């Protein structure tokens, strides 16, 4: 059974990057797929990769991650400036991030306005 856990922006926005990553990895290590409101910064993503690598063992194989941008590309320039200012003050709330354990998620494809998530055939895997 696949479990999807939604994490609203407000739940992690006040956390430090380290705590945020700890929280996300904890959920992923419980074999759950996390859907986050908002996007991680590039340094947070590299820290997430680094931390993931440190935790890889025979059971935990790593993560799959993808982001969906909800900003319309044809917005007016003033709108873009306003969004950039809000993002600077409050962090990037717009968009969605999906993170899941690599043992469950085979591949995530962006298409480009939707996310396609392909999971491992666990039944097939168990038969081996």
């Amino acid at each position, binding site marked *: 059974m696949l479990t999807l856990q939604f994490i609203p922006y407000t739940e992690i926005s006040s956390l430090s990057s380290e705590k945020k990553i700890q929280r996300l990895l904890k959920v992923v290590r419980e074999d759950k797929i996390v859907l986050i409101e908002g996007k991680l*910064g*590039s340094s947070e*993503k*590299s820290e997430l990769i*680094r931390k993931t690598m*440190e935790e890889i063992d025979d059971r935990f194989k790593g993560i799959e991650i*993808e982001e969906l941008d909800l900003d319309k590309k044809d917005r007016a320039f003033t709108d873009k400036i306003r969004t950039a200012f809000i993002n600077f003050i409050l962090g990037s709330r717009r968009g969605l991030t999906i993170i899941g354990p690599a043992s469950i998620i085979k591949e995530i494809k962006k298409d480009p306005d939707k996310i396609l998530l392909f999971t491992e055939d666990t039944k097939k895997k168990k038969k081996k």
Partner: protein
Amino acid sequence: MGLFTNFLRKFLKNLFKTKGEVKLGLYGPPNGGKTTLANKIAMDWIGEEVGKVSGIPHETREIQIKEQITIKSKKSKGKELTFNLVDTPGIATKIDYEDFLKAGLKEKEAKTRAKEATKGVVDAIKWLDDMDAVVVVLDSTKDPYSQVNITIIGNLEARKIPVLVVGNKIDLKKSDVKKVQAAFPQYDVIGISAKYGKNIDEFYEALFKVTNK
């Protein structure tokens, strides 16, 4: 704390840096052709190889450095660039030792390789701060919009490190350099075949630009 450590590292790096010494890093996902390109550069200019190349992912699991490589411009006579070439392990979000079993390795060997590969990724990320310029080597037959690619380039952008994007493997039918250019329009993107040396002169000229020489 992190900001202070970064500042201190950069300060000490600049303090002890030899004049004119440039650290040029090769970054990218596994099997993009970083070591093939490193070998091509080193063979062309100093007649030595940097590391072993194979079809199994994560062949490079340690940072490999070739110091004092001097390249000469074909376009501008007398123009030279000397750098230390840093070949890094491929950055990935997952490493499964079972993939190495499928590639023909024995279990113990596969587990060791997976362990070393995870450490390699950690080291590659740590070394980002030390680079003066970076060539991001991507397999042009693959989707360039991966989170690994976006994360590498985003981190370099945040650190204000100059970037040259290389769409490697243009000798292959499925190669699509235009797609790589569309993914990273803010950077110079050059299509090459590191294996066969295709477009390599344009690549060398681009190195002068990215290192600001």
